[in-house]
């Protein structure tokens, strides 16, 4: 019976892959032209001669992510938050139990050389992550990538020192959850900022609007002084960086803290 099921699964896999290859045969070798939609995005992403279609961001991926298809990314952030909350709900009790057990911090962790190097490099990692996120509208990168880079620094500190060291320094799950919520509130407020400005000024404006559109002439400024911020994109990247970084830090801290409670059967 088991054998028969395996054979059926393998045969159906081969058939499905053949079907996928048939459907994808048009794209197996990339062509010289790209789809019309992609051409439009590339042409309009930073084009001052199209004032009602442009995002004023030289980076087409971020322009699609937070402007042309911004609602997708908003709900995707909601999914990310829900997954973090679900994980917390599963591990919450264990986290509080583990906190009550005391550990001698001076004896835990790796050698003095490794600790010193980790102290030196972790601020640099955070700086690189912040740079990736805050230049997300100019160069490849953005809030997600910057946040994931920042979350590496606490991971190194957990390995080199210990999880309780991080918690004693103030990286508790409550505080991180607070920063995640602040980031999400910031994303929500940025999404409706132009609409709120429109309410105050008394003009019509869309939700999730960035640059001025034909039927709603107000919008976010593309530049502040002489610096390009691409309207809402810079703020979205900033808040997303906080939300993603602290979301991953919560998960790492809790997973590594309850590590000591695994028992071999």
């Amino acid at each position, binding site marked *: 019976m088991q054998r028969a099921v*395996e054979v059926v*699964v393998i045969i159906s*896999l081969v058939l499905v*892959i053949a079907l996928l290859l048939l459907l*994808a045969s048009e*794209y*197996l*070798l*990339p*062509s*010289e*032209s*790209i*789809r019309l*939609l*992609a*051409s439009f*995005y*590339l*042409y309009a*992403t*930073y*084009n*001052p*001669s199209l004032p009602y279609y442009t995002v004023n961001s*030289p*980076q*087409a*991926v971020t*322009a*699609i*992510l937070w402007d042309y*298809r911004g609602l*997708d*990314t908003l709900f*995707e952030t909601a*999914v*990310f938050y829900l*997954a*973090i909350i*679900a*994980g917390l709900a*599963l*591990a919450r009790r*264990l986290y509080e139990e583990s906190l009550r057990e005391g550990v001698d911090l001076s004896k835990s962790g790796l050698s003095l050389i490794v600790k010193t190097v980790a102290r030196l490099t972790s601020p640099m990692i955070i700086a690189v992550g912040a740079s990736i996120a805050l230049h997300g509208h100019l*160069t*490849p990168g*953005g809030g*997600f990538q910057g946040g*994931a880079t920042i979350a590496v620094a606490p991971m190194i500190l957990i390995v080199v020192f210990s999880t309780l060291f991080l918690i004693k320094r103030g990286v508790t799950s409550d505080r991180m959850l607070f920063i995640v919520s602040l980031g999400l509130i910031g994303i929500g407020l940025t999404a409706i900022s132009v609409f709120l400005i429109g309410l105050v000024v008394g003009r019509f404006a869309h939700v999730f609007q960035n640059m001025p559109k034909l039927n709603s002439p107000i919008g976010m400024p593309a530049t502040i002084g002489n610096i390009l911020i691409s309207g809402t994109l810079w703020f979205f990247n900033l808040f997303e960086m906080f939300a*993603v970084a602290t*979301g*991953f830090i919560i*998960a790492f801290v809790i*997973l590594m803290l*309850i590590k000591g409670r*695994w*028992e071999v*059967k």
Partner: protein
Amino acid sequence: MMVEFLNNYFLMIVLASLLANFVISLYGIFFKPHYIKKVIALMIFSDTMNTFAIYIGYRTWIGGKNPRPPELTLHPSSEALHEFTLRAVDPLPQALVLTAIVIGLAVTLFLVFLGYTLYMHYRTLDLREIKRLRG
């Protein structure tokens, strides 16, 4: 001519290894009994699918020049935009894959926490054992 042949050959190598990854990760998801191995196979599977999606947005070399990433590095004059539109790759799959990667990471974190509670409950992560225990 040689450059074109080598380009296509390297692309086919990428595609063949992606297909191999696809098959191996599906085998891991279905036939590996251990929970953590299933999760690892699932991660490899999702990364393979993301690379497929990016591959769809790729375009060939035009006139012996490689395609460029979808970032405009020059002042947006009309000629620069024309050249950019002619040579940059499709940005839409990249944007979709970016969201898919973060969702995949979050789902993986959730699965790991679920695995922890599974272990706490059954004291094993072998799914054959868990199926036998029925409790």
